[in-house]
């Protein structure tokens, strides 16, 4: 397999997704199949080929830096999962 269960566990930790042992096994198998398939790209000689990061050709798109008043403040606070007054509550970053 291209990717081991240990590697799946490690990338899941980096991606902040808790996986059950069954999920780890399943993802290792399906992701390995996908990564194996990707090897088809090694057939292509890409020496000196520029990567395509975007297709519009647009560069440096500017707009005026104008202050626009937003009336969404209260509604955005309503969307927060945990609030005290108007402040967002999150678990402590440090133990």
């Amino acid at each position: 397999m291209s990717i081991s269960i240990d590697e799946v566990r490690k990338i899941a930790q980096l991606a902040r997704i808790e996986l059950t042992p069954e999920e780890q096994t399943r993802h290792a198998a399906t992701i390995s199949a996908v990564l194996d398939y990707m090897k088809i790209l090694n057939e292509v000689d890409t020496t000196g080929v520029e990567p395509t990061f975007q297709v519009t050709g647009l560069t440096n798109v500017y707009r005026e830096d104008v202050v626009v008043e937003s009336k969404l403040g209260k509604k955005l606070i309503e969307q927060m999962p945990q609030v005290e007054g108007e402040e967002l509550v999150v678990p402590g970053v440090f133990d």
Partner: protein
Amino acid sequence: MTSLIKQRTNRNISNYIRKSGLSGYLDTTMKLNILTITQAAEGLRKKEFTSVELTESCLRQIKKRNKDINAFITVCDVSALDEARKADEMIAKGEGKPLTGIPFAVKDAICTANIRSTGSAKILDNYTPPFDATVVKKIRDEGGVLIGKTNCDAFGHGASNENSMYGPVKNPHDLTKVAGGSSGGSAAAVADNMCIFSIGEDTGGSIRQPASLCGIVGLRPTYGRNSRYGIMPMASSLDTVGPMTKTVEDMAIVMECIAGSDPLDATTIMDAVPDYVNEVKGQRSKVKGLRIGVPKEYFTVDGMDPEVKAITNEKIKRLKDLGCEIVDVSLPHTKYAIAVYYIVVPCEDSSNLARMDGIRYGVRNTEGRTLYDMYAKSRAQGFPEEVKRRILIGTYALSAGYYDAYYKKAQQVRTLIRQDFDDVFQKVDVLITPTSPFPAFGIGEKANDPLALYLGDIMVSPAALAGIPAISVPAGKTKAGLPVGVQIMGPRMAEGLVMSVGSRLSFVF
């Protein structure tokens, strides 16, 4: 409605249906919901019926059919009727525009002000955006009536609509089959006349493939033609938003409304929006002499359904009969498109979806003690398996030591795929291919083999990687009664041309 008005209305609808040649295609039960935009707008303008009646007709269809089809996650029954009343006032004052009073549906991965927008993922189960995506705002500003939010593969991840955390969408033509994806609910809602048109997203086929499987028209516009502000992002270098309609003419009407640059999306193209409706009306009679490319790689795909191939070949012959020049061409890097696509997408996905963390909005899991637990558990419960898989692939491919081998390599091959199209459009005006190698397949049939499902995107992902426009139009049905679409691809900004050619292939304009 008094019975006299009802009779008059029914007579007018039946006239519309007869004139448009739709009678064999749609069920003729005299319901307003079966009308196209063109027909409905005419009826509203002539005051044959009101937007409230039109909207009620769609709502009745939703009530009747959604429990079987599962096209909608949220139905806006109350607000839609309010909007319809306002639209009727606009029309009464002579302020009606092409989409005034027309009920439309929006994919749930597109934000709608004060209406729940889940992206079909439980992590946003309770999310109600306070703003409209630009495309939605443009339609609502014209007086369009938002009738509901449609089911999709979660955050657009999938081609069967089975990756929704709100259940799969069933194909209206056969409830045991998938509707396609990711915009499966938007396609099924139009195909089953639960709305007059809908809005979907196409990252790598998510408008065109379900349009093909459900027998409607779907357009992926040129990358940057339509604003993506307010769209839940999947792969930013590929994402587009486009209409899903009953006819090509309707497609042109919606595109005229939603296309154009947007200060809130810096990737939008500044070029003025053409008069698509007249462009299509004018060009469709002038297809004679157009050079139509038939790329051989699209006709030798493994597992291609023979009926799909036969229907596509019939359409090629039709274009030849219309005086088009049919040219055999080659897009030699086609076979690498899936590998490129399924590297680029997970990489960009894994970074875009980092925002779904249970902190500022959405559903937070509070079982754990630490910040890490909160992230990991919120994401574990809020994403379906396929979303997790793509985040994992992307995280892996972008991690130190793998970037050059995967993401950079894929983006280099993407350049070669783009060049294939640049070269071929020197020789031909547009390309014709099937949209999907197969018609709608059984629900669950490909669920355990993600790679098999990925490979089904072979016809639709190349145009996405190149950023060019492509339309899928209904071209026929298999013996089993499942719709088959054909795809017309054109050079950048050639929406008018692909719509014009498409309109000659479909049995409805």
